[in-house]
Protein backbone atom coordinates (compact mmCIF):
# COMPACT_ATOMS: atom_id res chain seq x y z
CA UNK A 1 0.00 0.00 0.00
CA UNK A 2 2.74 2.41 1.01
CA UNK A 3 4.73 1.66 -2.09
CA UNK A 4 1.70 2.24 -4.27
CA UNK A 5 0.94 5.53 -2.59
CA UNK A 6 4.49 6.77 -2.97
CA UNK A 7 4.50 5.91 -6.65
CA UNK A 8 1.17 7.65 -7.14
CA UNK A 9 2.33 10.72 -5.28
CA UNK A 10 5.35 10.94 -7.54
CA UNK A 11 3.04 10.70 -10.50
CA UNK A 12 1.19 13.75 -9.28
CA UNK A 13 4.35 15.85 -9.18
CA UNK A 14 4.78 16.30 -12.97
CA UNK A 15 1.14 17.22 -13.17
CA UNK A 16 1.83 20.40 -11.26
CA UNK A 17 3.39 21.65 -14.49
CA UNK A 18 -0.14 22.11 -15.65
CA UNK A 19 -1.17 23.91 -12.51
CA UNK A 20 -2.00 27.12 -14.28
CA UNK A 21 -4.08 25.68 -17.02
CA UNK A 22 -7.46 24.33 -16.37
CA UNK A 23 -8.03 20.63 -16.22
CA UNK A 24 -10.50 18.12 -17.40
CA UNK A 25 -13.82 17.85 -16.08
CA UNK A 26 -11.54 19.42 -13.47
CA UNK A 27 -11.58 22.45 -15.67
CA UNK A 28 -12.48 24.75 -12.79
CA UNK A 29 -15.29 27.25 -12.92
CA UNK A 30 -15.67 29.94 -15.54
CA UNK A 31 -14.58 33.50 -14.87
CA UNK A 32 -18.15 34.74 -15.04
CA UNK A 33 -19.12 32.92 -11.90
CA UNK A 34 -19.19 34.59 -8.49
CA UNK A 35 -19.37 32.93 -5.10
CA UNK A 36 -20.48 34.77 -1.99
CA UNK A 37 -23.32 36.16 0.10
CA UNK A 38 -26.05 38.67 -0.70
CA UNK A 39 -26.04 41.29 2.05
CA UNK A 40 -28.71 43.64 0.76
CA UNK A 41 -31.57 43.48 -1.74
CA UNK A 42 -32.97 46.61 -3.34
CA UNK A 43 -36.24 45.48 -4.91
CA UNK A 44 -37.14 48.86 -6.40
CA UNK A 45 -33.87 49.32 -8.27
CA UNK A 46 -33.57 45.60 -8.94
CA UNK A 47 -30.04 45.46 -7.56
CA UNK A 48 -28.28 43.60 -4.80
CA UNK A 49 -25.19 44.16 -2.71
CA UNK A 50 -23.01 41.10 -2.98
CA UNK A 51 -20.03 40.17 -0.85
CA UNK A 52 -17.48 38.09 -2.72
CA UNK A 53 -16.35 35.04 -0.82
CA UNK A 54 -12.64 35.24 -1.58
CA UNK A 55 -11.84 38.96 -1.34
CA UNK A 56 -14.75 39.98 0.94
CA UNK A 57 -15.18 42.90 -1.48
CA UNK A 58 -18.72 44.36 -1.77
CA UNK A 59 -20.12 44.84 -5.27
CA UNK A 60 -23.47 45.89 -6.69
CA UNK A 61 -25.09 43.52 -9.14
CA UNK A 62 -28.18 44.09 -11.28
CA UNK A 63 -30.89 41.46 -11.63
CA UNK A 64 -31.37 39.93 -15.04
CA UNK A 65 -34.67 40.38 -16.86
CA UNK A 66 -36.29 37.19 -15.69
CA UNK A 67 -35.10 37.37 -12.08
CA UNK A 68 -37.36 38.21 -9.17
CA UNK A 69 -36.31 40.00 -5.96
CA UNK A 70 -37.80 37.06 -4.05
CA UNK A 71 -35.21 34.75 -5.61
CA UNK A 72 -32.43 36.67 -3.87
CA UNK A 73 -31.75 34.59 -0.79
CA UNK A 74 -29.80 36.52 1.81
CA UNK A 75 -27.17 35.29 4.25
CA UNK A 76 -26.35 32.00 2.62
CA UNK A 77 -23.69 31.13 0.11
CA UNK A 78 -24.87 31.49 -3.45
CA UNK A 79 -23.37 31.07 -6.88
CA UNK A 80 -24.10 33.76 -9.41
CA UNK A 81 -23.49 33.55 -13.13
CA UNK A 82 -23.02 36.87 -14.85
CA UNK A 83 -24.66 37.53 -18.18
CA UNK A 84 -21.88 38.26 -20.65
CA UNK A 85 -24.29 39.32 -23.36
CA UNK A 86 -26.26 41.77 -21.22
CA UNK A 87 -26.22 45.50 -21.94
CA UNK A 88 -24.40 46.59 -18.78
CA UNK A 89 -21.69 45.12 -16.62
CA UNK A 90 -22.47 43.08 -13.55
CA UNK A 91 -25.86 41.82 -14.73
CA UNK A 92 -26.79 38.46 -13.26
CA UNK A 93 -27.93 35.64 -15.47
CA UNK A 94 -28.88 33.19 -12.79
CA UNK A 95 -28.43 32.54 -9.12
CA UNK A 96 -28.37 29.29 -7.20
CA UNK A 97 -28.02 28.36 -3.57
CA UNK A 98 -24.71 26.62 -3.14
CA UNK A 99 -25.60 24.02 -0.54
CA UNK A 100 -28.81 22.07 -0.93
CA UNK A 101 -30.77 21.15 2.16
CA UNK A 102 -30.13 17.48 2.75
CA UNK A 103 -33.46 15.67 3.00
CA UNK A 104 -33.76 11.95 3.67
CA UNK A 105 -34.83 11.22 0.11
CA UNK A 106 -31.87 13.15 -1.33
CA UNK A 107 -29.55 11.34 1.04
CA UNK A 108 -30.90 7.95 -0.01
CA UNK A 109 -30.70 8.91 -3.69
CA UNK A 110 -27.02 9.80 -3.29
CA UNK A 111 -26.30 6.53 -1.47
CA UNK A 112 -27.97 4.46 -4.21
CA UNK A 113 -26.22 6.28 -7.06
CA UNK A 114 -22.92 5.92 -5.19
CA UNK A 115 -23.32 2.16 -4.78
CA UNK A 116 -24.15 1.46 -8.41
CA UNK A 117 -21.51 3.87 -9.72
CA UNK A 118 -18.92 2.26 -7.45
CA UNK A 119 -19.80 -1.26 -8.55
CA UNK A 120 -19.45 -0.24 -12.19
CA UNK A 121 -16.15 1.56 -11.52
CA UNK A 122 -14.63 -1.39 -9.73
CA UNK A 123 -15.63 -3.69 -12.55
CA UNK A 124 -14.99 -1.79 -15.78
CA UNK A 125 -12.63 0.91 -14.49
CA UNK A 126 -14.87 3.85 -15.19
CA UNK A 127 -18.47 4.71 -15.02
CA UNK A 128 -20.77 6.63 -12.90
CA UNK A 129 -19.55 10.12 -13.78
CA UNK A 130 -21.93 10.34 -16.70
CA UNK A 131 -24.85 9.86 -14.34
CA UNK A 132 -23.58 11.32 -11.02
CA UNK A 133 -23.33 14.90 -12.19
CA UNK A 134 -26.76 15.05 -13.90
CA UNK A 135 -28.30 13.20 -10.97
CA UNK A 136 -26.91 15.69 -8.44
CA UNK A 137 -28.09 18.58 -10.60
CA UNK A 138 -31.58 17.14 -10.65
CA UNK A 139 -31.47 17.15 -6.84
CA UNK A 140 -30.95 20.92 -7.07
CA UNK A 141 -27.15 21.11 -6.82
CA UNK A 142 -25.66 23.89 -8.98
CA UNK A 143 -23.78 22.47 -12.00
CA UNK A 144 -20.30 23.60 -10.94
CA UNK A 145 -20.74 22.20 -7.42
CA UNK A 146 -22.04 18.92 -8.85
CA UNK A 147 -18.99 18.55 -11.11
CA UNK A 148 -16.62 19.51 -8.27
CA UNK A 149 -18.19 17.17 -5.72
CA UNK A 150 -18.28 14.29 -8.18
CA UNK A 151 -14.59 14.84 -8.88
CA UNK A 152 -13.80 14.82 -5.15
CA UNK A 153 -15.62 11.51 -4.68
CA UNK A 154 -14.12 9.95 -7.81
CA UNK A 155 -10.45 9.99 -6.85
CA UNK A 156 -10.71 8.22 -3.45
CA UNK A 157 -13.04 5.69 -5.03
CA UNK A 158 -10.58 5.08 -7.89
CA UNK A 159 -7.73 4.89 -5.38
CA UNK A 160 -9.41 2.20 -3.29
CA UNK A 161 -10.47 0.31 -6.42
CA UNK A 162 -6.99 0.56 -7.95
CA UNK A 163 -5.39 -0.67 -4.72
CA UNK A 164 -7.68 -3.70 -4.56
CA UNK A 165 -7.14 -4.62 -8.18
CA UNK A 166 -3.40 -4.08 -7.83
CA UNK A 167 -3.49 -6.57 -4.96
CA UNK A 168 -5.26 -9.05 -7.25
CA UNK A 169 -2.36 -8.56 -9.66
CA UNK A 170 -4.48 -6.84 -12.29
CA UNK A 171 -3.42 -3.20 -12.30
CA UNK A 172 -0.34 -2.15 -14.27
CA UNK A 173 0.96 0.86 -12.36
CA UNK A 174 3.52 1.87 -14.95
CA UNK A 175 1.02 1.75 -17.80
CA UNK A 176 -1.47 3.65 -15.66
CA UNK A 177 0.98 6.43 -14.89
CA UNK A 178 2.21 6.74 -18.48
CA UNK A 179 -1.38 6.92 -19.67
CA UNK A 180 -2.35 9.40 -16.94
CA UNK A 181 0.41 11.86 -17.80
CA UNK A 182 -0.40 11.81 -21.51
CA UNK A 183 -4.11 11.99 -20.72
CA UNK A 184 -3.54 15.21 -18.77
CA UNK A 185 -1.97 16.74 -21.86
CA UNK A 186 -4.90 15.41 -23.90
CA UNK A 187 -7.26 17.20 -21.56
CA UNK A 188 -5.55 20.52 -22.33
CA UNK A 189 -6.03 19.93 -26.05
CA UNK A 190 -9.64 18.88 -25.48
CA UNK A 191 -10.38 22.07 -23.56
CA UNK A 192 -8.82 24.22 -26.30
CA UNK A 193 -11.06 22.57 -28.90
CA UNK A 194 -14.10 22.99 -26.64
CA UNK A 195 -13.39 26.69 -26.13
CA UNK A 196 -12.90 27.24 -29.84
CA UNK A 197 -16.24 25.64 -30.62
CA UNK A 198 -17.97 27.56 -27.85
CA UNK A 199 -16.64 30.85 -29.22
CA UNK A 200 -17.47 30.01 -32.81
CA UNK A 201 -20.87 28.37 -32.44
CA UNK A 202 -22.14 29.29 -28.96
CA UNK A 203 -23.69 27.11 -26.28
CA UNK A 204 -25.99 25.08 -28.51
CA UNK A 205 -23.15 24.44 -30.96
CA UNK A 206 -20.95 23.27 -28.14
CA UNK A 207 -23.69 20.99 -26.81
CA UNK A 208 -24.23 19.58 -30.29
CA UNK A 209 -20.49 18.94 -30.66
CA UNK A 210 -20.32 17.17 -27.30
CA UNK A 211 -23.36 15.03 -28.07
CA UNK A 212 -22.08 14.18 -31.54
CA UNK A 213 -18.67 13.13 -30.19
CA UNK A 214 -20.42 11.17 -27.46
CA UNK A 215 -22.63 9.36 -29.98
CA UNK A 216 -19.91 8.57 -32.51
CA UNK A 217 -17.41 7.34 -29.94
CA UNK A 218 -19.89 5.34 -27.91
CA UNK A 219 -21.65 3.73 -30.86
CA UNK A 220 -18.47 2.79 -32.73
CA UNK A 221 -16.30 1.79 -29.80
CA UNK A 222 -19.19 0.30 -27.81
CA UNK A 223 -20.40 -1.57 -30.89
CA UNK A 224 -16.95 -2.98 -31.56
CA UNK A 225 -16.42 -4.05 -27.94
CA UNK A 226 -19.83 -5.71 -28.01
CA UNK A 227 -19.04 -7.56 -31.25
CA UNK A 228 -15.73 -8.71 -29.79
CA UNK A 229 -17.35 -9.88 -26.55
CA UNK A 230 -20.03 -11.75 -28.50
CA UNK A 231 -17.37 -13.48 -30.59
CA UNK A 232 -15.47 -14.43 -27.42
CA UNK A 233 -18.60 -15.74 -25.72
CA UNK A 234 -19.29 -17.97 -28.72
CA UNK A 235 -15.70 -19.15 -28.94
CA UNK A 236 -15.55 -20.26 -25.31
CA UNK A 237 -14.27 -17.00 -23.87
CA UNK A 238 -10.58 -17.35 -24.65
CA UNK A 239 -9.23 -13.88 -25.21
CA UNK A 240 -6.58 -13.25 -27.81
CA UNK A 241 -4.59 -10.09 -28.40
CA UNK A 242 -6.12 -8.05 -31.23
CA UNK A 243 -4.40 -8.05 -34.61
CA UNK A 244 -3.98 -4.29 -34.36
CA UNK A 245 -2.19 -4.57 -31.03
CA UNK A 246 0.07 -7.33 -32.35
CA UNK A 247 1.01 -5.09 -35.28
CA UNK A 248 1.57 -2.13 -32.94
CA UNK A 249 3.82 -4.17 -30.66
CA UNK A 250 5.99 -5.03 -33.67
CA UNK A 251 6.77 -1.36 -34.32
CA UNK A 252 10.25 -0.96 -32.90
CA UNK A 253 10.43 2.79 -32.41
CA UNK A 254 12.42 3.81 -29.33
CA UNK A 255 11.80 4.45 -26.53
CA UNK A 256 10.31 1.00 -26.08
CA UNK A 257 8.47 0.43 -22.84
CA UNK A 258 7.82 -2.82 -21.06
CA UNK A 259 4.70 -3.20 -18.95
CA UNK A 260 5.04 -6.18 -16.66
CA UNK A 261 1.49 -6.76 -15.48
CA UNK A 262 0.00 -6.06 -18.89
CA UNK A 263 2.69 -8.34 -20.39
CA UNK A 264 3.28 -5.91 -23.21
CA UNK A 265 6.38 -4.33 -24.74
CA UNK A 266 5.41 -1.44 -26.93
CA UNK A 267 6.83 1.81 -28.27
CA UNK A 268 6.01 4.92 -26.24
CA UNK A 269 4.84 6.44 -29.52
CA UNK A 270 1.86 4.10 -29.47
CA UNK A 271 0.83 4.71 -25.87
CA UNK A 272 1.04 8.50 -26.26
CA UNK A 273 -1.84 8.89 -28.77
CA UNK A 274 -4.01 6.51 -26.75
CA UNK A 275 -3.40 8.59 -23.63
CA UNK A 276 -3.98 11.84 -25.49
CA UNK A 277 -7.29 10.63 -26.88
CA UNK A 278 -8.36 9.44 -23.44
CA UNK A 279 -7.68 12.91 -22.05
CA UNK A 280 -9.35 14.69 -24.94
CA UNK A 281 -12.43 12.60 -24.50
CA UNK A 282 -12.38 13.14 -20.74
CA UNK A 283 -12.40 16.88 -21.40
CA UNK A 284 -15.25 16.55 -23.88
CA UNK A 285 -17.64 13.99 -22.45
CA UNK A 286 -16.23 13.52 -18.93
CA UNK A 287 -15.81 9.75 -19.36
CA UNK A 288 -12.29 9.19 -20.68
CA UNK A 289 -12.42 5.54 -19.69
CA UNK A 290 -14.80 4.81 -22.53
CA UNK A 291 -11.89 5.24 -24.92
CA UNK A 292 -9.00 4.58 -22.51
CA UNK A 293 -10.00 0.99 -21.69
CA UNK A 294 -10.78 -0.10 -25.27
CA UNK A 295 -7.58 1.70 -26.34
CA UNK A 296 -5.50 -0.29 -23.87
CA UNK A 297 -7.20 -3.51 -25.00
CA UNK A 298 -7.25 -3.17 -28.78
CA UNK A 299 -4.31 -0.84 -29.51
CA UNK A 300 -1.83 -1.61 -26.74
CA UNK A 301 -2.82 -5.23 -26.28
CA UNK A 302 -3.63 -5.53 -22.56
CA UNK A 303 -6.35 -7.92 -21.42
CA UNK A 304 -9.74 -6.49 -20.46
CA UNK A 305 -9.05 -7.25 -16.79
CA UNK A 306 -5.72 -5.41 -16.80
CA UNK A 307 -7.04 -2.51 -18.90
CA UNK A 308 -10.04 -1.89 -16.65
CA UNK A 309 -7.87 -2.11 -13.52
CA UNK A 310 -5.28 0.24 -14.98
CA UNK A 311 -7.99 2.74 -15.89
CA UNK A 312 -8.64 3.16 -12.16
CA UNK A 313 -5.07 4.45 -11.71
CA UNK A 314 -5.63 6.97 -14.51
CA UNK A 315 -8.93 7.99 -12.91
CA UNK A 316 -7.21 8.46 -9.55
CA UNK A 317 -4.47 10.71 -10.90
CA UNK A 318 -6.82 12.79 -13.02
CA UNK A 319 -9.48 12.92 -10.31
CA UNK A 320 -7.05 13.97 -7.59
CA UNK A 321 -5.70 16.77 -9.72
CA UNK A 322 -9.17 17.87 -10.76
CA UNK A 323 -10.24 17.94 -7.11
CA UNK A 324 -7.35 20.24 -6.21
CA UNK A 325 -8.41 22.60 -9.01
CA UNK A 326 -12.03 22.67 -7.86
CA UNK A 327 -10.93 22.90 -4.23
CA UNK A 328 -8.87 26.00 -5.04
CA UNK A 329 -12.06 27.67 -6.22
CA UNK A 330 -13.86 26.35 -3.14
CA UNK A 331 -16.71 24.63 -4.95
CA UNK A 332 -16.62 21.14 -3.45
CA UNK A 333 -19.64 20.30 -1.34
CA UNK A 334 -17.90 17.73 0.83
CA UNK A 335 -21.22 16.37 2.11
CA UNK A 336 -22.18 15.23 -1.38
CA UNK A 337 -18.74 13.74 -2.04
CA UNK A 338 -18.72 11.81 1.24
CA UNK A 339 -22.29 10.53 0.90
CA UNK A 340 -21.44 9.18 -2.54
CA UNK A 341 -18.30 7.64 -1.04
CA UNK A 342 -20.25 5.97 1.79
CA UNK A 343 -21.64 3.39 -0.61
CA UNK A 344 -19.30 3.69 -3.58
CA UNK A 345 -16.33 2.49 -1.51
CA UNK A 346 -18.28 -0.70 -0.84
CA UNK A 347 -19.43 -0.92 -4.45
CA UNK A 348 -15.99 -0.41 -5.94
CA UNK A 349 -14.45 -3.19 -3.83
CA UNK A 350 -17.32 -5.54 -4.63
CA UNK A 351 -16.87 -4.78 -8.33
CA UNK A 352 -13.11 -5.30 -8.03
CA UNK A 353 -13.43 -8.70 -6.40
CA UNK A 354 -16.14 -9.56 -8.91
CA UNK A 355 -13.58 -9.36 -11.71
CA UNK A 356 -11.70 -12.29 -10.17
CA UNK A 357 -14.69 -14.59 -10.67
CA UNK A 358 -15.75 -13.76 -14.22
CA UNK A 359 -14.35 -14.52 -17.62
CA UNK A 360 -12.57 -11.63 -19.28
CA UNK A 361 -15.27 -11.07 -21.90
CA UNK A 362 -17.94 -10.32 -19.26
CA UNK A 363 -16.06 -7.08 -18.55
CA UNK A 364 -16.36 -6.26 -22.25
CA UNK A 365 -20.07 -7.12 -22.24
CA UNK A 366 -20.75 -4.78 -19.30
CA UNK A 367 -18.68 -2.02 -20.83
CA UNK A 368 -20.30 -2.28 -24.26
CA UNK A 369 -23.83 -2.45 -22.84
CA UNK A 370 -23.26 0.67 -20.75
CA UNK A 371 -21.70 2.56 -23.64
CA UNK A 372 -24.46 1.73 -26.10
CA UNK A 373 -27.30 2.66 -23.75
CA UNK A 374 -25.57 5.88 -22.69
CA UNK A 375 -25.23 6.70 -26.40
CA UNK A 376 -29.02 6.56 -26.68
CA UNK A 377 -29.40 8.96 -23.77
CA UNK A 378 -27.21 11.51 -25.53
CA UNK A 379 -28.56 10.84 -28.99
CA UNK A 380 -32.13 11.75 -28.12
CA UNK A 381 -30.92 15.18 -27.04
CA UNK A 382 -29.51 16.02 -30.47
CA UNK A 383 -32.85 17.18 -32.02
CA UNK A 384 -33.15 19.80 -29.26
CA UNK A 385 -29.71 21.24 -30.03
CA UNK A 386 -30.40 21.17 -33.78
CA UNK A 387 -33.55 23.23 -33.17
CA UNK A 388 -31.57 25.73 -31.10
CA UNK A 389 -29.19 26.15 -34.01
CA UNK A 390 -32.11 26.56 -36.47
CA UNK A 391 -30.95 23.48 -38.30
CA UNK A 392 -34.26 21.72 -37.70
CA UNK A 393 -37.85 22.92 -37.58
CA UNK A 394 -39.24 23.09 -34.03
CA UNK A 395 -41.08 20.11 -32.62
CA UNK A 396 -43.88 20.05 -30.03
CA UNK A 397 -43.15 20.48 -26.34
CA UNK A 398 -44.64 17.07 -25.66
CA UNK A 399 -42.05 15.47 -27.92
CA UNK A 400 -39.23 17.36 -26.22
CA UNK A 401 -40.47 16.23 -22.80
CA UNK A 402 -40.66 12.67 -24.11
CA UNK A 403 -37.08 12.85 -25.40
CA UNK A 404 -35.90 14.25 -22.06
CA UNK A 405 -37.64 11.35 -20.34
CA UNK A 406 -35.99 8.83 -22.65
CA UNK A 407 -32.63 10.46 -22.02
CA UNK A 408 -32.98 10.23 -18.25
CA UNK A 409 -34.41 6.72 -18.11
CA UNK A 410 -31.85 5.33 -20.51
CA UNK A 411 -29.14 6.45 -18.07
CA UNK A 412 -30.97 4.66 -15.28
CA UNK A 413 -31.32 1.62 -17.55
CA UNK A 414 -27.60 1.73 -18.41
CA UNK A 415 -26.60 1.67 -14.75
CA UNK A 416 -29.26 -0.85 -13.78
CA UNK A 417 -28.47 -3.34 -16.53
CA UNK A 418 -24.72 -3.05 -15.96
CA UNK A 419 -25.16 -3.68 -12.23
CA UNK A 420 -27.42 -6.64 -12.97
CA UNK A 421 -24.95 -8.27 -15.39
CA UNK A 422 -22.11 -7.78 -12.90
CA UNK A 423 -24.04 -9.27 -9.99
CA UNK A 424 -25.38 -12.24 -11.98
CA UNK A 425 -21.92 -13.01 -13.43
CA UNK A 426 -20.33 -12.66 -10.01
CA UNK A 427 -22.85 -14.92 -8.25
CA UNK A 428 -22.48 -17.53 -11.01
CA UNK A 429 -18.69 -17.37 -10.75
CA UNK A 430 -18.75 -17.69 -6.97
CA UNK A 431 -21.16 -20.61 -7.02
CA UNK A 432 -19.05 -22.44 -9.61
CA UNK A 433 -15.94 -21.73 -7.55
CA UNK A 434 -17.52 -23.09 -4.35
CA UNK A 435 -18.76 -26.17 -6.16
CA UNK A 436 -15.35 -26.96 -7.61
CA UNK A 437 -13.74 -26.40 -4.20
CA UNK A 438 -16.18 -28.76 -2.48
CA UNK A 439 -15.63 -31.40 -5.19
CA UNK A 440 -11.91 -31.01 -4.63
CA UNK A 441 -12.39 -31.32 -0.87
CA UNK A 442 -14.48 -34.45 -1.49
CA UNK A 443 -11.68 -35.98 -3.55
CA UNK A 444 -9.20 -35.23 -0.75
CA UNK A 445 -11.36 -36.86 1.89
CA UNK A 446 -12.32 -39.83 -0.24
Amino acid at each position, binding site marked *: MKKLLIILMFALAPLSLFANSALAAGDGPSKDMLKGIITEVNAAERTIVFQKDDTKELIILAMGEKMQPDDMKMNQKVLINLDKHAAGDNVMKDISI*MFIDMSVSKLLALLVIGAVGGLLSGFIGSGGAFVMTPAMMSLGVPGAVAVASNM*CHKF*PKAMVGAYKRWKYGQADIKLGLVMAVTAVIGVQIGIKIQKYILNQFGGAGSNLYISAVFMVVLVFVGGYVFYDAWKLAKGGGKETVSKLAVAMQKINLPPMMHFKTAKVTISAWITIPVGLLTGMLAATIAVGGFVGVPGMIYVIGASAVVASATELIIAFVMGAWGSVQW*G*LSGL*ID*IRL*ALLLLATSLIGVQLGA*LGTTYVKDYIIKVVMATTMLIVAVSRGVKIPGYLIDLDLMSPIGEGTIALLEGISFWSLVLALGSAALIIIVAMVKGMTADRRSKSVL*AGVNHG
Partner: protein
Amino acid sequence: MAITTFDKNMSAVAFAEAGEYDTASQILGENTKKQAGKSPAPAVKRKPYLKTVTFGAMSISAYVLLFTNEKLVTEVFTMGGWRWVYPVGAAFFFSFIHGAFASNLLSALGLEAKK
Protein backbone atom coordinates in the same frame (compact mmCIF):
# COMPACT_ATOMS: atom_id res chain seq x y z
CA MET B 1 -17.95 -48.47 9.26
CA ALA B 2 -15.93 -45.42 9.96
CA ILE B 3 -13.90 -45.47 13.15
CA THR B 4 -14.15 -42.17 14.95
CA THR B 5 -11.35 -40.60 16.89
CA PHE B 6 -13.32 -41.34 20.03
CA ASP B 7 -13.51 -45.05 19.16
CA LYS B 8 -9.80 -45.11 18.44
CA ASN B 9 -8.92 -43.37 21.67
CA MET B 10 -11.13 -45.74 23.61
CA SER B 11 -9.55 -48.79 22.03
CA ALA B 12 -6.08 -47.36 22.72
CA VAL B 13 -7.12 -46.88 26.34
CA ALA B 14 -8.37 -50.48 26.44
CA PHE B 15 -5.04 -51.80 25.11
CA ALA B 16 -3.09 -49.54 27.46
CA GLU B 17 -5.07 -50.76 30.45
CA ALA B 18 -4.44 -54.30 29.37
CA GLY B 19 -0.70 -53.60 29.39
CA GLU B 20 -0.34 -53.55 25.60
CA TYR B 21 1.42 -50.17 25.54
CA ASP B 22 2.92 -50.67 22.12
CA THR B 23 -0.39 -51.42 20.49
CA ALA B 24 -1.94 -48.48 22.30
CA SER B 25 0.68 -46.05 21.11
CA GLN B 26 0.46 -47.60 17.64
CA ILE B 27 -3.25 -46.87 17.49
CA LEU B 28 -2.76 -43.34 18.74
CA GLY B 29 0.32 -42.90 16.55
CA GLU B 30 -1.65 -43.98 13.52
CA ASN B 31 -4.10 -41.38 14.44
CA THR B 32 -1.58 -38.59 14.76
CA LYS B 33 0.29 -39.73 11.68
CA LYS B 34 -2.87 -39.59 9.68
CA GLN B 35 -3.57 -36.13 10.98
CA ALA B 36 -0.10 -34.98 10.03
CA GLY B 37 -0.14 -36.67 6.67
CA LYS B 38 -3.38 -35.06 5.65
CA SER B 39 -2.99 -32.15 3.32
CA PRO B 40 -3.07 -29.03 5.44
CA ALA B 41 -6.65 -28.55 6.36
CA PRO B 42 -8.19 -25.63 4.50
CA ALA B 43 -7.44 -22.93 7.02
CA VAL B 44 -10.74 -21.57 8.14
CA LYS B 45 -10.01 -17.91 7.83
CA ARG B 46 -11.42 -16.05 10.75
CA LYS B 47 -13.82 -13.42 9.67
CA PRO B 48 -12.78 -9.90 10.61
CA TYR B 49 -15.87 -9.04 12.68
CA LEU B 50 -13.94 -6.97 15.20
CA LYS B 51 -12.19 -4.94 12.53
CA THR B 52 -15.46 -4.38 10.70
CA VAL B 53 -17.10 -3.08 13.85
CA THR B 54 -14.11 -0.91 14.83
CA PHE B 55 -13.70 0.73 11.44
CA GLY B 56 -17.47 0.95 11.09
CA ALA B 57 -17.74 2.81 14.38
CA MET B 58 -14.90 5.14 13.40
CA SER B 59 -16.46 5.82 10.05
CA ILE B 60 -19.94 6.43 11.45
CA SER B 61 -18.65 8.79 14.12
CA ALA B 62 -16.73 10.72 11.47
CA TYR B 63 -19.90 11.01 9.39
CA VAL B 64 -21.96 12.07 12.41
CA LEU B 65 -19.34 14.62 13.38
CA LEU B 66 -19.37 16.05 9.88
CA PHE B 67 -23.12 16.24 9.50
CA THR B 68 -23.77 17.70 12.94
CA ASN B 69 -21.35 20.49 12.05
CA GLU B 70 -22.64 20.74 8.51
CA LYS B 71 -22.80 24.52 8.39
CA LEU B 72 -19.31 25.11 9.72
CA VAL B 73 -17.77 22.42 7.54
CA THR B 74 -19.36 23.52 4.27
CA GLU B 75 -18.42 27.11 5.07
CA VAL B 76 -14.76 26.42 5.82
CA PHE B 77 -14.27 23.80 3.11
CA THR B 78 -15.45 26.13 0.36
CA MET B 79 -13.33 29.16 1.16
CA GLY B 80 -11.05 28.33 -1.74
CA GLY B 81 -7.32 28.94 -2.03
CA TRP B 82 -5.11 26.77 0.14
CA ARG B 83 -8.24 25.45 1.85
CA TRP B 84 -8.45 22.89 -0.96
CA VAL B 85 -6.55 20.68 1.50
CA TYR B 86 -9.71 20.39 3.64
CA PRO B 87 -12.01 18.69 1.13
CA VAL B 88 -9.21 16.70 -0.53
CA GLY B 89 -7.77 15.68 2.85
CA ALA B 90 -11.22 14.73 4.13
CA ALA B 91 -11.81 12.62 1.04
CA PHE B 92 -8.49 10.83 1.64
CA PHE B 93 -9.22 10.36 5.34
CA PHE B 94 -12.69 8.92 4.71
CA SER B 95 -11.41 6.70 1.95
CA PHE B 96 -8.95 5.11 4.38
CA ILE B 97 -11.25 4.46 7.32
CA HIS B 98 -14.43 3.90 5.37
CA GLY B 99 -12.53 1.93 2.72
CA ALA B 100 -11.08 -0.30 5.44
CA PHE B 101 -14.57 -0.74 6.89
CA ALA B 102 -15.97 -1.66 3.47
CA SER B 103 -13.13 -4.10 2.83
CA ASN B 104 -13.61 -5.86 6.19
CA LEU B 105 -17.38 -5.81 5.78
CA LEU B 106 -17.13 -7.71 2.50
CA SER B 107 -14.75 -10.25 4.08
CA ALA B 108 -17.06 -10.63 7.08
CA LEU B 109 -19.90 -11.32 4.66
CA GLY B 110 -17.77 -14.04 3.10
CA LEU B 111 -17.13 -12.12 -0.11
CA GLU B 112 -13.48 -12.68 -0.98
CA ALA B 113 -11.59 -12.55 -4.23
CA LYS B 114 -10.99 -15.86 -5.99
CA LYS B 115 -7.57 -17.22 -5.10
